[in-house]
């Protein structure tokens, strides 16, 4: 009767939750963005996602073999990294470049630190930063969505077309400000397409509505902490609003900033990566504000039109410091020494 009895420390039950479940939830939440990518960039978008995921998984498998560690593909974290990387790349990026990015993201971004849970920087952003530094031209060559131009012609960074078939809305607004065009008119015209996704841009970043749907799913499932996306979006909005109200002619509408570029993908899916975000509740607010403000600072004052990637990486780098300064105080106050 007692032959199968085992002992272990309390508690003896657990909430049926696992790392794999969390990662699977993120993949589910990314589905709308992937569908949008397929809709606007057709085969380009889908193949890019498949290639990134496949190479990410292959890299993780090989790294585990080299490290003589058990296979860790079943936690799905490599899949998440692959998808997020693909969604943050331009749709027309050659597949060999996407493969290099994936390999770099997993191997240098994650596995050299010891695998899941040990990396300092968000692996997908490490991969993207590597590609931006190495293949600047490819990373700024954009595609016109298939719903506007069935030929899906590509646009180089220098090429300026009309408002609907432009590079990315952010790049356009930047040029518009430089050339002292009227940014206000432009933003108004672009805000609906930016919401649905019918604009040029990174594969999965164009459709705000798809990303919001996914973010909502993660929030409802309590997979991510609402503080980080809230802090990122609020701080970015406030930062952009200040400049907008100071000079509405040369700075674009803050709502435009929220819906374009990688801000939504970053707020809901990249900054919330638990491994590279702070542990503490206060720390999560600080981390979110750092990312939101840095993004806006880069977008408004910097040379790049987009800033989410560098903002996230910079935020990641101060994460241990944030956690150190935000040691939670016990419920009963600090004990008297």
């Amino acid at each position, binding site marked *: 009767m007692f032959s199968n009895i085992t*002992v272990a*420390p*309390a508690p*003896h039950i*657990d909430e049926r*939750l696992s790392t794999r479940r969390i990662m699977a939830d993120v993949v589910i939440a990314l589905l709308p963005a992937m569908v949008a990518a397929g809709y606007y960039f057709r085969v380009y978008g889908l193949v890019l996602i498949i290639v990134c995921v496949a190479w990410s998984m292959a890299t993780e498998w090989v790294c585990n073999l080299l490290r003589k560690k058990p296979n860790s593909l079943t936690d799905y974290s490599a899949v998440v990294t692959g998808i997020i990387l693909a969604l943050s790349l331009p749709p027309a990026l050659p597949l060999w470049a996407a493969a290099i990015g994936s390999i770099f993201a997993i191997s240098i971004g994650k596995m050299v630190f010891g695998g899941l849970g040990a990396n300092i920087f968000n692996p997908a952003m490490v991969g993207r930063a590597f590609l931006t530094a190495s293949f600047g031209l490819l990373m700024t060559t954009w595609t016109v969505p298939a719903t506007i131009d069935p030929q899906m012609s590509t646009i180089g960074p220098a090429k300026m077309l009309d408002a609907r078939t432009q590079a990315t809305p952010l790049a356009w607004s930047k040029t518009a400000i430089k050339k002292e065009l009227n940014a206000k008119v432009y933003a108004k015209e672009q805000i609906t397409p930016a919401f649905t996704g019918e604009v040029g841009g990174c594969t999965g970043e164009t459709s705000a509505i798809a990303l919001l749907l996914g973010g909502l799913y993660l929030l409802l499932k309590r997979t991510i902490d609402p503080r980080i996306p809230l802090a990122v979006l609020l701080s970015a909005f406030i930062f952009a609003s200040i400049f907008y109200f100071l000079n509405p002619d040369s700075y674009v509408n803050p709502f435009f900033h929220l819906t374009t570029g990688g801000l939504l993908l970053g707020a809901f899916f990249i900054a919330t990566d638990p491994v590279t975000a702070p542990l503490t509740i206060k720390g999560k607010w600080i981390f979110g504000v750092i990312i939101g403000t840095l993004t806006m600072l880069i977008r408004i004052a910097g040379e790049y039109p987009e800033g989410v990637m560098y903002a996230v990486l910079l935020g990641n780098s101060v994460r241990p410091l944030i956690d150190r300064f935000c040691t*939670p105080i016990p*419920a009963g106050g600090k004990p008297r020494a």
Partner: protein
Amino acid sequence: MPINLKSRLSFRGGVHPPQCKVLTQDKEILPGPSIKEAVILLSQHTGAICQPLVNKGDTVQAGQKIGDSEAFVSAPVHAPFAGKVKEISLQSHPVIGRCLAVVIEAAQDTTPRPPFFKLSPDFDENTYSPEQICDAVRRAGIVGMGGAGFPTRVKIEPNPQLPKHTLLINSCECEPYITCDYRIMLEWTDQIIAGAILAGRAAGSSNVYFAIEDNKPLAIETISTALEKHGRSNNTKVVPVKTKYPQGGERQLIRAVLNKQVPTGGIPPVIGVVVLNVATAAAIADAVINNNPLIHRVVTVTGEAVSNPGNFYVPIGTPIEDLLNFCGGLTRQAARVIIGGPMMGIAIADMKTPVTKTTGAITVLSQEQISRAELQTPCIHCGRCLKICPERLNPTKIAHAVKNYFWDVAQNYYISACIECGCCSYICPAHIELTGYIKTGKVFLARQKKKMPA
């Protein structure tokens, strides 16, 4: 008095494990099995271990004191029934592993009779002086029956430096599965009210509160009605609190009911509060009014892997094996036998381990139900444990510090403030035994400070 049955009174953090109380909540307290021998552990409480007062071969009477200690923080133990001392030897102890115990061979049938207690209308607690109550409590060997086993006399004794103005009767029973306190509230209502009033008299508390989780509306109603009937509802009140684990932790309960926070490292009397478990209150009434020692208690035998779960009134010292057999044995799925509930209970391997004064339940879980630490994956820093920690600590940091023997780090993150409720392990998606590590760390640190033998 209309009672609001849904309560918002709570603390910050905590988890909502499945209640699983339906298995036994409607089962009346029945007499337990008749047993051949009882194992009376000489340490069933926090504090000094008792010395045996009998020798091998002695004949003992029911309720005879068989072990005691001179120390202030201690409680004597008594023989649960008449019989002969078979041996005095080391026996399995649920908490400290092995402990000296008196084994008593029963002289006759030992089927216990549950007490019948009626609060007479002319009951007046003022006929007992606080000293009388404290002495009776000490004599009866009463300890906190909720699990910690702190000697009750030490708790309720008046202290001029720290007046105890409020007495909380902890009737939360927030652990899943366990229903012994719930049944006591329904069936021994008069007895616990008398016990609470006596304890309040001893401690000099002007307010007495019964804190009951709002998933037990029947208990809330029963006690409120009884209080009204006895005309005690002026300074004795029922306070429903939110159903959440660990609502019954005394620090959490004080926060929920009184909106006060016991300082880290402090005890409730520091802010003028005493917390007693309902079963303890029942024992106090029995000890003071009827002069009976604490030799029986109600134990819930429960879990999906037990054939016939129920609530039983058993002599302290009953081997758990006898109790499980009495319930029809275990099913084939049984994978873990736990003394206490699934959140804080202690898994046992030796089924001869006896019931002690603090054993409220035997929970048997099946293989599918138990947590799977063998699937442990790396910490992904999701912060869930920080969010639900009722003491607002950083469990993952402390646990990983312990794992790597960084004692200073563990202490900087307040390892000693952990109440070991198990919420962090429960919620962890990486299946890390955070609570296990923290408990281990506490033992290591205590040994370093020579507070505990190695």
